[in-house]
């Protein structure tokens, strides 16, 4: 006997049909449904080809289809095989937008700048920065955590380490906003770009690309000045090291190489810790039991490091894209040369086949082979710095303000996209 169809009742294997068609990382309501969508995709359609992302969608540059990989094993495979899943997309960032073997040479130059040995001596300074921001923030009982802490904190450290003058912060932030957030619905208006948008507030792509091209020229002019300055007066900073670096031990970096590297440093250094820290604080504000657990363990550095890994897994904010280098049949899916593949770390890191109870934060989770910092040759260059920043920030925040909550009646400004984050987080601290 055939059972009665109930058209009103959602059923995962049917729902996934419309999810696959309408999947849109940039949609304003994407973060609300993200993990439910990814769960269904992992289960029923681990590789999907959303209509919304035809022609490259937000990542641009692709004429063909865009695919979304949702399972851990597929995301990790693509990260590990740059010869098929290339990082050469859109803007020529170094080292992110370059594949091995050139990529390997760039990384050889830069890897030593962000090692444990280099970063350990910086810890006291990072802790000081955190406390200076907390001193100011805690003069009030209510504040926007993003504006007061998660935004300025990594930027101050970045400027210090890289050698960018702190007074140029507003300019750097403006560039970051354009490059990282320009695509987001409503941002073109917020940023006063004066370009056409659709009903949902998405900017017209051609106009946005024009704005970004102009901003790139301004940024390059600014960086060129700094580079010349360091050639004349070397200092102890990343800018100087970049100027003095030798590619494959043979030649200095060209002007283009220097600029493309600095461009990426600004995006990576200014935005990712902000997004991750904001996302973690939203979680802790909404889960006081987990916050207390963290406070219990936060004096033990080994346990803090496991907790950070778990919080990075849980929040996994990046969904990088790769370009398919040749027609390639991946597990029976025919990919075409030039197709784009979106590798969602958010979905991979909630894969129930790798992480038991994936939607739960287990601060001492082990093993925890998450891909929140990406794996393979393009793993995050600044990950050791990011971990220290996150660890120190969370320790100092919870030492100084163990009791806090979301401001009643308000919601955090959580946004989706290729790099997710939080741009508004109103908190109230307990006076007691």
């Amino acid at each position, binding site marked *: 006997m055939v059972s009665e169809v109930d058209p009103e009742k959602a059923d995962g294997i049917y729902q996934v049909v419309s999810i696959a068609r309408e999947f849109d990382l940039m949609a304003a309501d994407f973060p609300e449904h993200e993990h439910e969508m990814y769960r269904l995709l992992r289960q029923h359609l681990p590789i999907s080809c959303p209509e919304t992302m035809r022609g490259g969608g937000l990542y641009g540059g692709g004429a063909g289809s865009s695919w979304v990989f949702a399972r851990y094993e597929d995301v990790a495979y693509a990260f590990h095989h740059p010869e098929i899943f290339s990082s050469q997309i859109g803007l020529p960032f170094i080292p992110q937008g370059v594949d091995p073997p050139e990529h390997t040479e760039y990384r050889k130059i830069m*890897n*030593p700048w*962000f*090692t444990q*040995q280099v970063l350990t001596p910086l810890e006291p300074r990072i802790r000081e920065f955190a406390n200076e921001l907390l001193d100011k923030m805690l003069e009030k009982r209510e504040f926007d955590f993003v504006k007061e802490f998660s935004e300025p904190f990594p930027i101050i450290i970045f400027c210090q380490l890289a050698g960018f003058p702190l007074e140029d912060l507003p300019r750097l932030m403006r560039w970051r906003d354009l490059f990282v957030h320009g695509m987001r619905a409503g941002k073109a208006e917020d940023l006063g770009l004066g370009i056409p948008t659709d009903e949902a507030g998405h900017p017209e792509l051609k106009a946005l690309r024009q704005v970004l091209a102009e901003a790139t020229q301004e940024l390059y002019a600014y960086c060129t000045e700094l580079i010349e300055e360091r050639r004349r007066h070397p200092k102890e900073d990343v800018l100087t090291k970049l100027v003095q670096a030798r590619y494959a031990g043979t030649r200095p970096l060209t002007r283009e190489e220097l600029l493309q590297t600095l461009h990426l440093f600004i995006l990576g250094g200014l935005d990712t810790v902000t997004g991750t820290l904001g996302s973690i604080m939203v979680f802790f504000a909404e889960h006081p039991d987990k916050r207390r657990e963290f406070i219990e363990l936060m004096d033990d550095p080994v346990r803090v490091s496991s907790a950070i890994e778990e919080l990075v897994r849980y929040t996994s904010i990046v969904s990088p894209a790769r370009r398919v280098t040749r027609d390639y049949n991946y597990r029976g899916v025919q990919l075409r040369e030039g197709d784009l593949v979106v590798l969602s770390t958010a979905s991979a890191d909630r894969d129930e086949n790798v992480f038991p109870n994936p939607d739960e934060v287990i601060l001492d989770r082990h093993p925890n*082979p998450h891909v929140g910092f990406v*794996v*393979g040759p393009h793993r995050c260059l600044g990950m*050791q710095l990011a971990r220290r920043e996150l660890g120190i920030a969370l320790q100092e925040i919870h030492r100084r303000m163990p009791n806090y909550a979301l401001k009643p009646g308000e919601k955090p400004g959580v946004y989706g996209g290729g790099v997710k984050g939080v741009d508004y987080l109103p908190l109230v601290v307990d006076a007691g």
Partner: protein
Amino acid sequence: MKVRVDREKCQGHNRCYMICPEVYQVDDEGYAYVSNGEVPQDLREQARRGAEACPENAITVLAEAGASR
């Protein structure tokens, strides 16, 4: 018990180092290595956990015959 880091696979996540710095070290480029593959009895559990934490599967644990966990 011995541990071995596959230097081709290591991408410098340093998770092994964070869990068991007594066994895993990090070179000037951020990649892991072990200077003495033989793991002392009292560090075996930690060394094993360090190996399991590697997201690149770059660390192999070689148990010796008769070695206890």
